[in-house]
């Protein structure tokens, strides 16, 4: 790794350590939701002022003009501190970049970018619907011409942090008489506009709600809010999903570390013998470590390829698929080792340290951002060239597909 990147890592680490007492894991412990959000926004502001926001964005847009690799390095360092960064993932990772790329009013887009980087404004992404989860193009939210602009009606689902968002990007159906991929159009939206209702969803896992249902009742949009050609929204949505191709990966599947499990196995006993000497436990540790070290090596290699100006291979697609499933099983074994002491539950615990919380929250990781089954399809079809699933709705006008 080059000297520049090494020194960047040290610089990032030093800054993170300096603000960790204010924003880190310990400072956030037990903080109520509103205050948590406020701390998140203050942390984002501090990042912006220290020159660690929009690391690979153009300086014209408030960024630092560095490479995606610098961003990954910063995020790798940031990961361990437990900073309140969750509110900005979709906002800065997906929604704002797509607005910057496609918005008609460039000056307005630039202002939004800076406001988002400073943590003043938050964006959400309105894709999923009750009837279209894995099948994004099956969505039913309707947008119709209305005077000089448009009128939006329908419902979105699983919208991350919609309740805190100032703006959102949305895809809706403008023409139900053509094949489902062809009748979609992409817009940006003011989340405080009349007719927008946000209702948080309580999930099985602990913690405050972070996903929402969002309802649209005759919401008015100007044509200036359109981000794609009319009927060309699906392509823009795909571009959106590709924008954030490289992000820091977490081989633990965002669960506890291997060392945390080893500590538990040292303390626990199985039938009167130390758990760490039990072959089943040792096997689980070894297999989990081997899987995680493989994912880490894939990421390191991808970073080196990027640093050398090459395109990393498609194996990066494995990260979420493999790591979250493994975290789910390891968390089950951890609760087994704790026995009935593991039945206790500590709301607000972090899924990075707490096995029960890790286990409760793991299913989300196997669904959000592409279910395991969709990721396997993607690997099979795009990487290995296996046939596509049978899709009976292919080429059929949307309004003729049986609901």
């Amino acid at each position, binding site marked *: 790794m080059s000297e520049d990147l090494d020194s960047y890592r040290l610089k990032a680490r030093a800054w993170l350590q300096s603000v960790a007492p204010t924003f880190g894991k310990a400072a956030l412990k037990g903080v109520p939701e509103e205050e948590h959000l406020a701390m998140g926004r203050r942390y984002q502001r501090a990042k912006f002022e220290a020159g660690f926001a929009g690391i690979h964005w153009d300086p014209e847009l408030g960024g630092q003009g560095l490479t995606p690799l610098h961003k990954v390095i910063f995020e790798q360092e940031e990961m361990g501190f437990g900073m309140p960064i969750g509110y900005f993932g979709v906002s800065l990772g997906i929604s704002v970049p797509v607005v910057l790329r496609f918005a008609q009013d460039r000056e307005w887009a630039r202002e939004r970018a800076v406001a988002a980087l400073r943590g003043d404004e938050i964006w959400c992404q309105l894709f999923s619907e009750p009837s279209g989860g894995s099948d994004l193009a099956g969505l039913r939210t309707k947008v119709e011409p209305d005077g000089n602009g448009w009128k939006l009606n329908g419902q979105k689902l699983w919208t991350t942090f919609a309740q805190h968002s100032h703006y959102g990007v949305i895809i809706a159906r403008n023409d139900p008489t053509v094949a489902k991929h062809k009748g979609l159009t992409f817009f940006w939206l003011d989340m405080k506009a009349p007719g927008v209702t946000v209702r948080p969803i309580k999930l099985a896992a602990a913690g405050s709600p972070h996903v929402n249902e969002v309802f649209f009742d005759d919401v008015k949009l100007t044509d200036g809010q359109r981000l794609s050609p009319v009927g060309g929204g699906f392509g823009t949505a795909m571009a959106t999903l590709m924008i954030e191709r490289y992000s820091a990966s977490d081989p633990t599947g965002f669960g506890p570390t*291997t*060392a945390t499990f*080893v*500590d538990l196995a*040292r303390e626990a006993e199985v039938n009167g013998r130390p758990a*760490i000497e039990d*072959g089943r436990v*040792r*096997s689980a*540790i*070894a*297999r989990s*470590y*081997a*899987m995680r*070290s*493989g*994912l880490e*090596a*894939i990421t*390191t*290699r991808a970073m*080196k*390829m990027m640093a*050398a100006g*090459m395109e990393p291979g498609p*194996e990066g697609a*494995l990260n979420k*698929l*493999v790591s979250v499933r493994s975290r789910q099983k390891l968390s089950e074994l951890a609760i087994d080792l704790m026995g009935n002491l593991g039945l206790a539950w500590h709301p607000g615990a972090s899924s990075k340290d707490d096995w029960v919380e890790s286990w409760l929250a793991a299913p989300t990781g196997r669904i959000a951002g592409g279910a395991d*089954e969709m990721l*396997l*399809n993607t*690997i*099979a079809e795009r*990487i*290995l*060239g*296996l*046939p*596509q*699933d*049978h899709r009976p709705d292919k080429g059929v006008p949307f309004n003729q597909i049986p609901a």
Partner: protein
Amino acid sequence: MSILYDDEQQAIASESRRVLDARMDKTRLLGLLERTGAFDKPFWDTAVEQGWTALAVPEAQGGLGLGLIELGLVAQAAGAATAGAPFLTTNYGAICALLASGNADLQGQWLPKLASGEAVAAIAFAEGNAPLPPEPRSVFAGGHLSGEKPGVTAGLIADLAVVWCHHEDKPALVLVELADARRETVDSFDNGRLFADLAFARTPATLLVEGDAAQAAALDILARMAVVTAHEQIGGAEALLFIARDYANERKAFGQPIGAFQSVKHRIAELYGLVEIARANAIHAAAQEGQPGFLKAAAAARLSATEAYDTAARDTVQIHGGAGVTWDSGLHLHMRRARSLAIEQGNMLFWEDLLVDQLMGEAA
């Protein structure tokens, strides 16, 4: 630190694949399974001619002075072709042992011969499921070795062996010429590996290293061989992945390619995951050669490669249905090799334990 292959290494990888594609013959390999004592001579001639035997020998001893990374790339190509001669791994182990001994005379005597392919070496460490038995049943005393080693890879035709034994109640590695030893053929499910039971009765031998140093050297040699074997396993697993993929695209059932059924399609996608994780671990381990984290990296590579190859063999046969279980399909060449390689450098239980011990050392 993981690595990117440089131009020279990429050339070794593509050239070895090309040469083996051109020269390997399934019928010949199937023939080896039906008799004992034979090995894939054309593969070995190719290995010598291509300089693969010289890769890890120092330049001063007639070698190319390269290392684990290059050897791994060749092993990967050999694994894809189920090349039926085990010497790439065992010769490398012997080269490492000779270098660890610091004995210049022995190095001068054997390294050039190993480099040129004139001599073949075996590594006789394991007894049953213990790759490095704490109480080896062979004893070295007064320049002679006595005892037995079962199921030694390449033991049937090797000229010399590095033996894990006891010397004055301390562990030791000794070098022994096998012309003076008794060898008995093991009729195996993977006959091309030339497994033999070796017996020594006051056989002349030379001490290479003993005591704690022998323990450390033997473990290091085993780990290095395991990384080469991991590459070989990945080569096999990846070849199976492509065979399964191609078959699933061609073979039709119920009016469509079987690869369109998610039960088949997802099985193949899962194999891709196993192969890529194993590959990443193996490349990482090869790059860690001589570093403090090497044992841990080697263990991770060994575990994920073994899982990848066994699973690929199991699932690829399953995807082929009846065609997969015929002698002529040749898939059983991989199935057999997956199991023999899973044992040759120590089984999963050994490597899992070793890895956890390493991790505990770190956590303590």
